[in-house]
């Protein structure tokens, strides 16, 4: 893990966090260090948020850097722009840490080109569940502003996966990072975490001179608490999914609509393998299966899709929670996938989105793995 910077630019202003961040983004546009900024913005009907790539500085005033909800994953938005190759424009993307980690995973799958992209993250207090927000957008806004003001990282109304997220702050992969840590007079720090970050800082005439160790310790405390909550929640999840019957019971509401797959940033396939002819080709086998088993549930392969998607993408899962938001029958898909991802990634000692160079375990193998398999075989024979 790269050493986390200890110095930052102190930003103290009477404005609230979001306006201060927008000011800095404006500076970036003015100084031509970036040509366009990707930020969330409220939709005209004021009932949701959308990712807008802003080039014209005037538009930036309506930006809402820390949006209360995550309707679209930032990595998916960035991928829709830069999948087809390096763009001439230099882009800065202001995203939540889990969105930045998803972008890194997508870059390893050649779905995002990071050549001209500056990744800016911020301390994320979590996001509200879509369902609650959509019921009453105004109430959601007030609740989130309150969380931001008090920097209440233990608030109960945020998404379940955010409650157990211990990677909500600075990451080795982000170029710049806004710390939201509260000290009496509402100050905020901007840390540069890579050469590109330092370059942008220089271009907008800022100098990282203040130590941020107080912020770092504060964040570490919250991380330890979150990690403990995570362990506790995972033991509950374990009971929900271990063994075929409990898996069946947990997913009994599933209607096979694959919303979780469309919302997921890692699932980039235009046609999911479980919709391809390889799985659905045996349509007239339906009758055969029904005869053999006495009855089959329709539509078919609903559980196979869930387990299959786990096997395909859990190594890159960043636990961003969009799948639960998208699920019409409110199955806790995000927490289940986060639990599975935790275990599969531990198996390969790989943590998704943490470092650019490391290839995805699915695409390579290390020698010890082969030895591991040998031992498994020998144990089986013994």
């Amino acid at each position, binding site marked *: 893990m790269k050493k986390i910077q200890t110095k930052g630019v102190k930003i103290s202003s009477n404005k609230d966090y979001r306006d201060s961040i927008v000011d800095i983004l404006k500076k970036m546009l003015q100084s031509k260090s970036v040509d366009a900024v990707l930020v969330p913005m409220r939709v005209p009907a004021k009932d949701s948020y959308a990712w807008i790539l802003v080039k014209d500085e*005037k538009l930036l005033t309506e930006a809402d850097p820390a949006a209360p909800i995550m309707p679209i994953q930032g990595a998916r938005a960035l991928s829709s722009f830069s999948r087809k190759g390096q763009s*001439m424009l230099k882009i800065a993307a202001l995203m939540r840490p889990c969105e930045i980690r998803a972008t890194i995973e997508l870059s390893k799958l050649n779905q995002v080109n990071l050549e001209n992209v500056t990744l800016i993250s911020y301390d994320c207090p979590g996001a509200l569940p879509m369902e609650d927000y959509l019921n009453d957008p105004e109430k959601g806004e007030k609740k989130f502003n309150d969380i931001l003001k008090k920097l209440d990282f233990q608030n109960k109304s945020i998404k379940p996966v955010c409650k157990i997220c211990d990677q909500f702050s600075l990451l080795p992969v982000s170029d710049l990072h806004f710390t939201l840590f509260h000290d009496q007079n509402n100050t905020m720090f901007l840390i540069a975490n890579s050469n590109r970050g330092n370059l942008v800082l220089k271009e907008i005439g800022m100098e990282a001179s203040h130590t941020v160790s107080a912020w770092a310790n504060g964040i570490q405390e919250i991380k330890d608490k979150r990690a403990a909550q995570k362990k506790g929640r995972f033991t509950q999840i374990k009971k929900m999914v271990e063994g075929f019957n409990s898996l069946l019971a947990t997913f009994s*509401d599933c209607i096979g609509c694959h919303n979780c797959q469309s919302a997921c940033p890692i699932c980039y396939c235009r046609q999911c393998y479980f919709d391809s002819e390889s799985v659905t080709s045996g349509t007239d086998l339906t009758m055969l299966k*029904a005869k053999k088993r006495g009855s089959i549930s329709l539509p078919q392969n609903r559980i196979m899709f869930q387990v299959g998607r786990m096997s395909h993408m859990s190594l890159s899962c960043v636990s961003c929670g969009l799948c639960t938001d998208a699920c*019409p029958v409110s199955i806790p898909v995000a927490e289940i996938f986060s639990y599975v991802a935790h275990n599969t990634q531990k198996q390969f000692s790989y943590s998704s989105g943490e470092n650019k160079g490391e290839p995805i375990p699915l695409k390579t193998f290390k020698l010890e793995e082969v030895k591991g398999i040998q031992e498994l075989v020998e144990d089986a024979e013994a």
Partner: protein
Amino acid sequence: MDQVLTIKKSTEAGLIDLLTYLLKNKKVSGVCSLRKTKKQGKFDYALITDPELLHDVVPLHPLMPVNAGKMLSNMIKMEMPVAAVIKPCELRSFIELVKRSQGKLENFLLISYTCGGALPLTATVENKVDTMLPDYGKTVAAGNEFEHIREICKACEYFVPFNADATVSLLGETGADSTCKIFLHSDKAKEILQGFEVEKTEDEFDRTGYDQIRERRKKYKEELFKQIKIQDTGLDGMIDVFGRCIGCHACSRVCPICYCVLCDFESSTYDYDNTIMEQELSRKGGLRLPSDTILYQIGRLSHMSFSCIGCGQCTEVCPSDIPVSVIFRKCGEKVAEIFEYIPGRDVNEQVPVTIFKEEEFEEIGEE
């Protein structure tokens, strides 16, 4: 003339007897219907071939986890037909799919019923189905709309199946919990159910008996449509309504009419490369990513709205709670009226897009 079976049992029990008879005596190769799953309070559609497993079948429950018409479409090859118990809107979806050669009528014995509307998915999620059922049963028997059914069902005029092989009379059947009346329309149904020893009489199914219900539902539909103000505000109206759309295309995945393996809006034709996006960005100063969420809605409206049955599945699965089915029904109905076309009414009635009539040119001429 229709043949009427009357069974001295509750409607659902009588229908289950019929299905058991069909399966036990090998008259059908399988039964497709709703059933209870192992988990208490949860239901799913199932294709059952072993008569013993018919005991937890609940064919007339007001639930629609998926559109059954869409499921029947990809079952192609079988020796004998499958008896399927489906709602009128699911039957009309299946007919629309048959018109697009995505299914075969002769594969099925289609049993439908006069539908009192379906409960939303949240009912099963919150395990309220069993508690709601008794009240639901009484209101339907009385011919009214149960308050918790889905909005789109309250606005449904075609609750009487057009061309099922057999229709179970449920809506407005006062004695529903003691006698089960099933009308056999097609010869196939009569022939298959010849050996079913129950009281059989000749009678004509009276479609007009439901005009009063139909009026009420039509009125409800008008109000529902009024709430959607798309047509008079153009693109801004669309942006207001579909602003929340995240482009996940869930609505097209569950829609019975959207049968394409690769939707044109998901294909590479809409993968713009950087130069196009950069030009758009410099022209407008800002660019929504991922783009084309509104274009997709307009596209889907133009591709399939005239065939929209109004089964309500798209609203159920929309993660942004957009009332998609109401919008598509409203737009679809406007288009269908021009062609006097009711989707799913009659399998021989061709889809408006595929044919044209001479008089259409005159109208164009007039304008």
